[in-house]
């Protein structure tokens, strides 16, 4: 999968590395901005009250 992705990237090696880094950063930014807050809201994993809330 990742090997196929790598082959899809155009250009010489350094261009591919830059593109790959941009892709990874974009995915991480998307996760931190939308996906993780959404999961966090679903999990509600950290209760801090007595007697439940």
């Amino acid at each position: 999968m990742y090997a196929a992705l790598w082959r899809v990237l155009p250009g010489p090696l350094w261009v591919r590395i830059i593109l790959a880094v941009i892709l990874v950063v974009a995915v991480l930014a998307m996760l931190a901005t939308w996906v993780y807050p959404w999961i966090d809201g679903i999990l509600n994993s950290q209760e801090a009250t007595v007697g439940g809330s």
Partner: protein
Amino acid sequence: MCPQADEPVEIAAVRPRRVKKGKVTVVGVLGELLITVGALVLLFLGWQLWWNDMLMASSQSSAASEISQDWIDQDTAAPKPVPTVDPVEPSAVPVAVDYGSPVVAAAPSNATAFAVLYVPRFGAEYHRSIAEGTGHDVLNSNRLGIGHYAGTQMPGEIGNFAVAAHRSAFGGAMHLINELQLGDAIYVQTADGYYTYRYRDTEYVAPSQVQVLASVPNNPDNTAVDRIITLTSCNPLYSTAERIIAYGVLESWQPLSAGAPAELAPIIAAQG
């Protein structure tokens, strides 16, 4: 078992057909996906407990200093009437001024901030808003962070001013609750004044033990005489198996116009 050297083995026939370099296979993709999911779960923990925790702590902190400063500014512009103080005969030696019984405000509506908590033991930079209610709209808010158990007493009131906050993640307002030491100051600032509580003791209870919120903690049938503050959070760190409960007792009260208590004044001044 090893094939004997003299045993003729048709290696070419036995050896699995080599996957052509770079060919996409179902197993290969599945494996990569599983590794990716594992990495994303670890990343989520890092995000929740460190990155987002840090962001929320900083936004909760600046929201708290904002409302704290607003109260001080409002009071400077139009000082609230200071409750009648028993006439003290002029004395050559400065004595601690007694401002009488603490002013007790009415509980506001849910998720409304009405106080700011300062605990020097948690760091000179530490300040968090206390809002009404202990729902997710308060504890998981990036503006609030500490929730007042609805139905428990208000700051300065006889009984139990009980609040809850996260130990880790969501800004972790009670991250260092286990570090409190006997006599540590717990300051609560409201629009009326400064309430100085002194930390007394900690206990660890089951999450179901609501008696810690009673106006006499753990003695719901007794009539309150003390003014208690109760901080509740999760225990152990990163777990929700138990609750850590820290108690303090009110030491003194002073109106905003009197200025902050000596230890708190530089902290208030620094929050700008």
